[in-house]
């Protein structure tokens, strides 16, 4: 029985590796002398997957191997698409992937020794606000949002990492039943974070923070009044922002009718829709479309680029993969024994879910476009490492101190069950 259960996961890994190899080998034959670099990428990324997977199943048995496998599948599609757009970017993305998965393992190891993370609300809050304020003081503007800082030649986006602290801070207050008055520091903290993000013009991230906050609040208190209050406040603030802030109105108008100004304000969405439409169900074929026309095809609009060349069937499969990933996160929250861990798992799953929804929704013109990355697929070091860290804290909620013995008995129950199955 255990063998069969294990066999399924290996099947999935094998399929991912065949996909990865097929994609890169196809790209290698695109240029006239065969592109050796693509072949190297094929072998190297597959080796990274196998090694990470073996580390995962041998040292972190309690963790969810399917989440890791889905991340491999998503990142593989990302690597192939990035390589097709620009080889250098893809190579850097593989480096970020390795850094990310190392951060993931480090968090899992640390969580075996770390206890009482729920006591430091004020530390989380102060560090979060400080990190969010950094780009305003020493930041650089990129893509209309002032949310980047430069550290030793690399640009880092602090708001990606503050997501973790935001979840920890919110969970450490909401883990117990609180009166309205006791919730005030948390409300103030959340409002300050979102205010800073609005000032930095990072609306997509602000929406994610807000959604995660409301979800955690509702999960912890089951009080619909808080949720309605937050939503009404958000609606009012949003409406005022629409009336007063030019860039908010531009985005909403570009969403309502991008074709009215297709060469300027609606350009991104129009190009994205044309790309998805020209790909159709099956896609134009890898290397045969024109995804490089889409603005920001490597980062925010990578979903449109994938939909064009791989086709809508694969785009739908990607959405299904995120769905399973988030479902597994919610399941982890349900099986957590302690409300703090449950809230962390919910927060991390909600963050990944909303980030995916906000960007895919924006790219397919379901909701107004705000620039955030597609977790594990879009190019970006901060995004890749932060997404891995989110999955890390989500998985760390199931890690408990090792129980002693009893392994033999479990095996026996497993065997008997397999006979009756």
């Amino acid at each position, binding site marked *: 029985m255990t063998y069969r259960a294990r066999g399924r996961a290996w099947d999935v890994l094998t399929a*991912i590796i065949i996909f990865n190899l097929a994609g890169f080998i196809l790209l290698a034959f695109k240029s006239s002398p065969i592109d050796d670099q693509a072949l190297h990428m094929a072998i190297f990324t597959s080796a990274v997957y196998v090694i990470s997977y073996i580390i995962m199943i041998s040292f972190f048995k309690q963790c969810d191997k399917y989440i890791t496998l889905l991340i491999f599948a998503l990142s593989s599609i990302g690597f192939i698409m990035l390589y097709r757009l620009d080889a250098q970017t893809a190579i850097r993305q593989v480096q970020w992937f390795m850094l990310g998965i190392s951060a993931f393992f480090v968090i899992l190891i640390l969580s075996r020794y770390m206890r009482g993370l729920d006591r430091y609300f004020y530390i989380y809050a102060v560090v979060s606000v400080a990190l969010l304020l950094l780009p305003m003081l020493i930041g650089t503007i990129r893509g209309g949002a002032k949310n980047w800082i430069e550290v030793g030649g690399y640009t880092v986006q602090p708001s990606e990492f503050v997501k973790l602290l935001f979840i920890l801070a919110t969970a450490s207050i909401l883990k117990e039943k609180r009166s309205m008055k006791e919730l005030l520091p948390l409300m103030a903290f959340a409002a300050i974070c979102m205010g800073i993000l609005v000032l930095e013009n990072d609306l997509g991230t602000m929406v994610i923070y807000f959604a995660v906050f409301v979800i955690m609040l509702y999960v912890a208190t089951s009080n619909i009044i808080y949720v309605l209050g937050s939503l009404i406040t958000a609606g009012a603030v949003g409406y005022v922002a629409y009336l007063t802030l030019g860039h908010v109105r531009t985005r909403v108008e570009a969403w309502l009718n991008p074709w009215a100004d297709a060469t300027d304000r609606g350009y991104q969405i129009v190009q994205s829709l044309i790309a998805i439409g020209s790909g159709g169900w099956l896609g134009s074929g890898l290397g045969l479309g024109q995804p490089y026309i889409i603005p920001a095809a490597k980062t925010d609009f990578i979903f449109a680029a994938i939909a064009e060349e791989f086709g809508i069937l*694969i785009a739908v499969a990607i959405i299904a993969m995120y769905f399973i990933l988030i479902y597994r996160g919610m399941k982890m929250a349900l099986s957590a024994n302690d409300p703090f861990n449950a809230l962390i798992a919910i927060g991390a799953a909600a963050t990944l879910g909303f980030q995916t929804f906000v960007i895919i929704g924006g790219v397919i013109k379901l909701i107004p476009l705000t620039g955030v990355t597609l977790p594990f697929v879009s190019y970006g070091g901060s995004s890749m490492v932060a997404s891995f860290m989110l999955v890390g804290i989500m998985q760390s909620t199931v890690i408990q101190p090792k129980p002693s013995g009893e392994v033999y008995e479990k095996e026996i129950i497993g065997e008997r069950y397999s006979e009756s199955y």
Partner: protein
Amino acid sequence: MRGDLYEVTALSSRYIFIILIYIILYRTIKGIKMEYALAAAGVAKPSMEPSYGILSVVECLDGVSTIWAGMEFPIKERNTIGRSRDNYIIIDRDDVSKQHAVVYVEDKKIYIEDMHSKNGTFVNGKRVRKVTRIRDGDSIAIGPVMFMVKIPAAIKNQEIG
């Protein structure tokens, strides 16, 4: 000429990509389903303690932060229930005693014992006076919480066989 060859290969490999992606999805879902089937039979993930059944919270009055309807506690060798923090199932409300009751497994049978609690433990509506055996489908009421005992068929068969 080379361009044409690439075009044909790329066009036909679209199907391979689609088939592979859906194999990945299908196998993942299959694997997850299998894992749940194992977990329901008490053979959860390899390094977890064995469980003999599940105490599922079917009802929980408002005002308890540590427990909520829908939570499921695997029944282990010894499961203490009460208000203080060192219990397996913590019910943080004044009408629950510090050490309220204990559910334990002996010889593969599950029993419940009231630990001289103030407001009592009720199995199927009857107050527990002495050690009582509990079976699949029994309800246990403690203060604001109502549990349902679930013993998966796989474990029941094992007990008989």
